[in-house]
C-alpha cells in the first residue's frame, strides 16, 4: 500500500521540523518527506490541508487489563481506543493476572495484540517472581521473549538487598528497569495526598516523602549497580528535584509523568469523588507546577497516560475503598495539547514528550517522521471541537475525572506501519 499524506503541517520534534509538506509512505516505511520520488504512484492520497501530521504516540504506561481483568477492558478494546487517540505503541506493565513473569504470558499478549492489529503492544516484564519482591524473575528468558524492560508494577520490592540484586541482574542482561517509587510503610492505606485537604476530609494521607524516600533509595542503587532506569508516574516536586540533581551529576535516569498529574490537584477531589482516586495521589499545585516545569527543563522527559480502565463497580463506594486509577487513553493527547493551548509547553515540547523521547527510553526506532522511519503517523485536526463523555470515550473503562471537559482538537487518521488503523468517519 502506497500512501501520500499531502499538504499537512508536518511536525517532527526529533528533527525540529515544522513545515507544510507531503509524507510519502510505502511498505510500512516513510520514503519521503516533501516531494515523492519519481514514478511514485499512490494507492491512496489523503488531503491533510489545515491539519497536523506528527509521529504516532508512544504511551509508556497503559494497563490493557488482559489477561486477568477482561471484565474491565481487553487488548482488543484498548488497542482500538489507542488507535482512535493517535497512540500507535502501548507499553504494558507486568501486573496482569497471571503476572508477566514468564515467556508464556508475553507470547499470549503478543498474540492477542497481533489479532487486534490496531496498535503495537510492547511489554514490561516482572522484575521479581509474581511481583512478590522476594525472588528475582527469569529476566534472560523474558528478554528473549521480547520484553522492552522489567519492573515491579505498583508493588514495591521492600527488601533492599533483593532490590539491589534485581537491579544488578537486570543490568547484566542490559534491561531497562521501570520503577514506581513509593515507600510502602509511609503510604500505609493512604488514598489522598497528605496535606490540608486529606486532613479536612479525614482521608489517610500518602505523604510526599513516601515518594522522596523511595526515589532516594532507588537512585543510590541505580548509581551503585549501573542499571539503566526509568521512574514511572512521578508525582512530587521534591522527588523531581532529587532526580534532576542526579541527572545533572551524570546519572542516566529518565522520568515520566501522567497527563492527569499535570492538570489536577488534590483540591479537585471535591465531595469524595472516586474518579479522582488515583495512585500516586493527586498532589498539590506546587507539585503540579514543578512537574510541568520538569517537562520544559527535560528532567521529566515523557508524558504518559497511566491508563487504568475500570468497571463501574470498582468506583462505586466511599473514596478510599474504590480502586485507584483513571481511564486515560482517550485523554493523553488532548490533555497534552491543552498544555500547549495554555502556554505551558510549545507544540514541539509537547509532541516530543509523546513521541521520540519515549521511543528512546524503550530503545525502539520509532517516534519520528523521516525517510526510512516506520510509518506510524497521526493526522490531527487542531480545530475540531468535542466534549469528553462516556459515549465519546473509546476505552472500555469510562472512569475519567475529565468527563465534561471540552477539547479543541481531534485525531482524524492514524497509521500503524503504513496501515490505516483509524479514520474518523
Amino acid at each position: 500500500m502506497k500512501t501520500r499524506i499531502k499538504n499537512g503541517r508536518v511536525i517532527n520534534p526529533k528533527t525540529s521540523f515544522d513545515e507544510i509538506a507531503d509524507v510519502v509512505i510505502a511498505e510500512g516505511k516513510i520514503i519521503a518527506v516533501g516531494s515523492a520520488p519519481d514514478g511514485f504512484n499512490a494507492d491512496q492520497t489523503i488531503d491533510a490541508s489545515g491539519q497536523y501530521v506528527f509521529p504516532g504516540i508512544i504511551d509508556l504506561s497503559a494497563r490493557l487489563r488482559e489477561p486477568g481483568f477482561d471484565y474491565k477492558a481487553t487488548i482488543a478494546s484498548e488497542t482500538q481506543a489507542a488507535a482512535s487517540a493517535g497512540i500507535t505503541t502501548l507499553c504494558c506493565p507486568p501486573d496482569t493476572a497471571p503476572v508477566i513473569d514468564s515467556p508464556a504470558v508475553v507470547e499470549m499478549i503478543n498474540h492477542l495484540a497481533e489479532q487486534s492489529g490496531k496498535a503495537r503492544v510492547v511489554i514490561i516484564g516482572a522484575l521479581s517472581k509474581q511481583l512478590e519482591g522476594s525472588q528475582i524473575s527469569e529476566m534472560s528468558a523474558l528478554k528473549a521473549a521480547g520484553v522492552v524492560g522489567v519492573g515491579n508494577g505498583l508493588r514495591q520490592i521492600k527488601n533492599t538487598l533483593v532490590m539491589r540484586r534485581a537491579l544488578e541482574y537486570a543490568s547484566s542482561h542490559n534491561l531497562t528497569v521501570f520503577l514506581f517509587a513509593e515507600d510502602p510503610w509511609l503510604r500505609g492505606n493512604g488514598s489522598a495526598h497528605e496535606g490540608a485537604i486529606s486532613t479536612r476530609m479525614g482521608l489517610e494521607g500518602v505523604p510526599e516523602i513516601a515518594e522522596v524516600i523511595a526515589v532516594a533509595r532507588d537512585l543510590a542503587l541505580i548509581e551503585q549497580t549501573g542499571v539503566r532506569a526509568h521512574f514511572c508516574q512521578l508525582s512530587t516536586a521534591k522527588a523531581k528535584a532529587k532526580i534532576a540533581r542526579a541527572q545533572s551529576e551524570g546519572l542516566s535516569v529518565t522520568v515520566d509523568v501522567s497527563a492527569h498529574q499535570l492538570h489536577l490537584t488534590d483540591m479537585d477531589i471535591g465531595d469524595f469523588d472516586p474518579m479522582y482516586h488515583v495512585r500516586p495521589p493527586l498532589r498539590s499545585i506546587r507539585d503540579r507546577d514543578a512537574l510541568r516545569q520538569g517537562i520544559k527543563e527535560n528532567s521529566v522527559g515523557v508524558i504518559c497516560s497511566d491508563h487504568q480502565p475500570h468497571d463501574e463497580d470498582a468506583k462505586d463506594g466511599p473514596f478510599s475503598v474504590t480502586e485507584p486509577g483513571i481511564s486515560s487513553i482517550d485523554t493523553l493527547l488532548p490533555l497534552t495539547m491543552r498544555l500547549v493551548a495554555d502556554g505551558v509547553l510549545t507544540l514541539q515540547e509537547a509532541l516530543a514528550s509523546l513521541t521520540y523521547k519515549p521511543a528512546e527510553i524503550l530503545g525502539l526506532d520509532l517516534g519520528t517522521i523521516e525517510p526510512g522511519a516506520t510509518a506510524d503517523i497521526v493526522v490531527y485536526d487542531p480545530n475540531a471541537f468535542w466534549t469528553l463523555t462516556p459515549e465519546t470515550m473509546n476505552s472500555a473503562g469510562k472512569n475519567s475525572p475529565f468527563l465534561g471537559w471540552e477539547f479543541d482538537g481531534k485525531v482524524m487518521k492514524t497509521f500503524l506501519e503504513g496501515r490505516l488503523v483509524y479514520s474518523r468517519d
Partner: protein
Amino acid sequence: MSYRHNLQLTADKKLRHFLTIQGLPRAVLCEILDTAETFSHVGQQAVKKVPILRGKTIVNLFFETSTRTRTTFELAAKRLSADVLNLNIAASATSKGESLLDTLRNLEAMQSDMFVVRHAQSGAAHFIAKHAPKHISVINAGDGQHAHPTQAMLDMFTIRRHFSDFYPLKVAIVGDVLHSRVARSEIHALTTLGVNEVRVIGPKTLIPTGIDSLGVHVFHNMEEGLQDVDVVIILRLQKERMTGAFLPSEQEYFHSYGLTSEKLNYAKPTAIVMHPGPINRGVEIDSSVADGSQSVILEQVTNGIAVRMAVMSMAMGQYTAAGGAV
C-alpha cells in the same frame, strides 16, 4: 457532570442532608441551636413526644457499632413520633460481596424517609446521599475520620448554654486529633460560629498535617495550650493507638496529655470540660476532673437528644424556628 453544588442544602439554603459542618452557613448552625433549644423541654414533659414526624420512617444504618450515638438518635426519632428501624450491618455483611450500593437499593424498597448513617469510611455519608433517592434525607452519624456533625452541634449547644456568646471564647481540643471525626467537625463549627481562638493540643504523631489550614493553633505542650481557655474538649483515645507507633504507653500519654486538676488550673477558673464519650478514666482524663464541678459531660449526653431532634426535623423540612410546629 463536573458541576458542583452544596449537597447538603436545598436551593433556598435549607438543610436537606446533614453530612458535615464544613460549608454550612452560620445561619444554618444557629437555626439548629435555636431549634434544639425549643425541643429541650420535651424530655421533661410527662409525655415525652411531639407529633412532628408522625408517619415517617427513619432507618438507623450503622455499619460500625455504637451504643450511645445510636440510642440517642433512636430516642430523638421516637420523641418526634417517627417509626424507627435499627439496622446494624456488621462489617461481615458487606464483605460478603454485597456492595454498599446493593444495601442501599434494598433499603429503598422499604420506603423510608431518612437514613442515619454511621460508617468506618470517610465520605460514606456523602456517597449514600449522592446515591439515595431524592426524597430521602441523610444524616451523618460519623464517617471514618471525616465528620461527626451532630456530635459537634451538641457540643456547641452545650457551650452556648454556659456562655452567652461564642465570640470571646478560647477553646482547646486535646488528644488524638488525627483519627478524630469529632475534632474535625468541632473545628468547623467553632470557626463558623466565630469563637476567638481554637487550639489543638497533642503530640505530633496525633496531629494531622496541615490542620492549621482549618484556622487552629497547634500546641504540643498541654500546659501552654490550656492557658486561659474557656472550654476544654478532651478526645477519646482509642486503645489501638498504642500498637501503631503513635504512642508508647497509656501511662506516658496520661502524664503528658491526660487532663488532671493541676493541668486544668491553667485554664480559666470558669472553664468547662467536655468529652464526647465514652471516657477512658486515667488515660485521657482523671476521674476527679471527669466527675468534678467543671465537667459538663453528662449534660452533653442529654443535649444530644434535643440537637438530633432539631437536625432530623429540619432535614425533613417539617420545622423552622420561626414557624414553630410544636
